[in-house]
């Protein structure tokens, strides 16, 4: 019963320290909140950066290629079987290509039978050459490479007569595409239509795959495919995959280091602020000591204040940090962050430690404060 009075007075003092010191409190709370938001935001960002960057690097297109080892083309069944080796959420693109040699007017061109959606996903850099038309491939339509357009004079909207051996197809040019590479010299039609033209039943000569994963992941998938389909060869496109690994590692370590620097700098600033604010309360410490407070009492009071601040600041900061990380993720990667639970205890821990330690140091200096000296002033 008697003990309760002491406890309630303690909380009275704590409350007073909090709510009646307004500007002081706001400054300190702000500092801790900011530091905590850096901890929470940066750790969320860092945890995400690897996977988000990996996804962005798929802009380079296919990192795996599956070819036939003999003359026998890839069947539809094989295509579907192979697809199963890839995890759905990591498979960015899976595009079978069927090749044929066709005549367009006087010239011979290579025709590629594709599904345009899949094609786009493994060649995200291929754009419409800015000459009108649209980047689509419906039935009875034809996409042509820029050089084909230049050579034949065909433009979007024109009807082209494509011939392979005896078969002839009349297709409308839907658009002209450009890549700077071999695609500029090729024409693209729907796989079914190329099959009709060439009289073949097969699904593909080659499959390009764009998959989010490191080199060893890709390698093990390739091994599995090769083991179960001896007539096929799955290979990593080293040029793409190898570079990806090294770039990813550099970007991640760059972000990590920057994040660390921001972290530490903010924390140090906050600690300095808290310490200097407590230095100002020398008089208060001297007064309390003159009233009979022991060093332990003083220490306990300030640590409690610091901890309470650390707790509140930590929670606010955690929330703010997630908002910040979300903002950055949306603006840089156009995707949302995943709120990682580990950041909460991490933030709270650091917040409490900063606040606690920052309270302890000046409080320990309080040990040396002689009430007489401080109270006599100047």
């Amino acid at each position, binding site marked *: 019963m008697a003990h309760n009075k002491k406890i309630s007075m303690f909380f009275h003092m704590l409350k007073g320290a909090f709510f009646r010191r307004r500007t002081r409190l706001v*400054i300190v709370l*702000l*500092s801790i909140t*900011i*530091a905590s938001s*850096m901890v929470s*935001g940066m750790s969320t960002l860092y945890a995400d950066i690897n996977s988000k960057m990996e996804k*962005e*690097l798929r*802009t*380079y*297109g296919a990192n795996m*290629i599956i070819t036939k080892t003999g*003359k026998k083309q890839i069947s539809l069944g094989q295509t579907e079987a192979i697809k199963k080796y890839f995890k759905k959420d990591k498979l960015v693109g899976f595009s079978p290509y069927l090749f044929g*040699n066709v005549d367009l007017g006087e010239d011979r061109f*290579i025709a590629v039978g594709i599904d345009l959606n899949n094609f786009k996903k493994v060649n995200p*850099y*291929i*754009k419409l050459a*800015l000459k009108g038309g649209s980047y689509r491939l419906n039935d009875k339509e034809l996409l042509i490479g820029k*050089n084909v357009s230049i050579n034949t004079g065909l433009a979007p909207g024109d009807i082209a007569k494509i011939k392979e051996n005896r078969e002839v197809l009349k297709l409308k040019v839907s658009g002209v595409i*450009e*890549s*700077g*590479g*071999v695609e*500029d*010299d*090729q024409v693209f039609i729907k796989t079914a239509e190329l099959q009709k033209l060439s009289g073949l039943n097969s699904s593909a*000569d080659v499959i390009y795959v764009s998959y989010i994963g490191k080199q060893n992941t890709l390698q093990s998938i390739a091994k599995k495919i090769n083991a179960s389909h001896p007539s096929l*060869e799955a*290979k*990593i*496109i*080293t*040029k793409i*995959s*190898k*570079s990806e690994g090294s*770039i990813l590692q*550099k*970007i991640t370590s*760059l*972000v990590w*280091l*920057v994040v660390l*620097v*921001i972290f530490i*700098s903010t924390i*140090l*600033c906050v600690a*300095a*602020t808290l310490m*200097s604010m407590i230095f*100002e309360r020398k008089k208060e410490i001297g007064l309390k000591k003159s009233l009979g407070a022991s060093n332990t009492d003083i220490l306990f009071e300030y640590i409690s204040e610091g901890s309470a601040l650390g707790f509140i600041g930590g929670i606010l900061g955690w929330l703010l940090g997630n908002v*910040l990380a979300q903002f*950055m993720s949306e*603006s*840089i*990667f156009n995707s949302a962050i995943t709120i990682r639970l580990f950041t909460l205890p991490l933030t709270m821990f650091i917040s409490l430690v900063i606040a606690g330690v920052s309270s302890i140091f000046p409080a320990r200096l309080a040990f040396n404060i002689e009430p007489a000296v401080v109270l006599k002033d100047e």
Partner: protein
Amino acid sequence: MFSRILFKSFTINLRRKLMAIISIAMGASLIVVMLNLWLDVGDKLGKELKSYGSNIVVKPKSQALPFDIGTDVDPLEGRSFIDESDLLKIKTIFWANNIVAFAPYLETKVKIDGRDYPVIGTWFNKKLVIPTGETIHTGVKAVKPWWEVKGSWISEQSKKSQGSALIGQNIAKKLNLKPGDSLPLIYKNKNNNLRVSGVVKAGGLEDTKIFVRLDELQKIANLPGKVGWVDVSALTVPENELARKYEKNPDSLSSTQFEKWYCTAFTKSIAFQIEEVIRGSEAKPLKQVADSESFILNKIQFMMTLLAVLAFVSSWLGVWSLMGAGVLERSKEVGLSKAIGASDLAIIALFITEASLVGLIGGLVGYFAGSGLAQLIGYNVFGRAIDIKIAVAPIAVMISVAIALLGNLSIVSTIVRLKPKDILHGA
């Protein structure tokens, strides 16, 4: 007298001043780190992205790039070519320094064991003396850094490499060949023999090809000094509004705009300059590499910008709150000064001078600390030093002084309005 007061005022409470300087230095060093990284990361990453290979392809005008789907067509029949002698001029264009490497190719087919195999003549690591007198080494080794060769590369400079070939790993497996073996083949009904110098693991369609010295292929095919197409790997800057304007319609640029475009290392402008020096050629950005590079670099730059802003705001808020924390202690000094008879102006002048000094010292310390830290980061991430930009120093100092002044001014204006009596007799 003023300087004496200043000195006294500065050294009194040195601890407080020191803490102010240190915290400003910390804030400044963070700014310096971010600025240095921000300015340099595009360059450094751009160099790293060269590992993706060439971003410009040069070929004879209106000529298609070879693409073999297994037909009987002779790749060299009826084609036009580029002159090998023009290639040196690539290193004389406006952006010559941005040309990292280039390699020419000439492709044909040979028969081995009754089947057709593609053979490409190229430079592996050829020594060249360019018109400026400089010696460079360039070729496939530099353009395709991901190639792994078991055995040994072909060196154009050694006589030993004559008649050697690098064969793709698929061919090596199919024909059961290893380095040192000999490879008999038939070209245009003539028998020939190559020695396998090495097996290359290129990863992709190149694993199905045979690579020989360009001059040897030119001799056999009777096309001396001719080249089918060229890969160029150049350091470029990402596309911006100007580049996009040119893309849409080159003629839409005014002459000043065109000059600016020409003098900016866009992939398109470098390609344009290459076309200027190689007769009858057409140089085009390889979108897969060029556009992706642009995309990634822009993204990284943007990310660095956001991080920099964040760093700036957070550290300066920290510094500001630290300055604000010292209000009460300064109020006594002010009260005393006023009681002695100092005018408001004198007090303000004192605070401003002090703040400027603190900002200056803190800013300079921060500049050096930050530069050092940026270097550490640069070495750690890229294995190379960051280019320290001197321009960062005045920026860091100016911002530091500004913050120091701002931190003090708001306090001063409140204090200056107080009456000395209140301060001296108050609690």
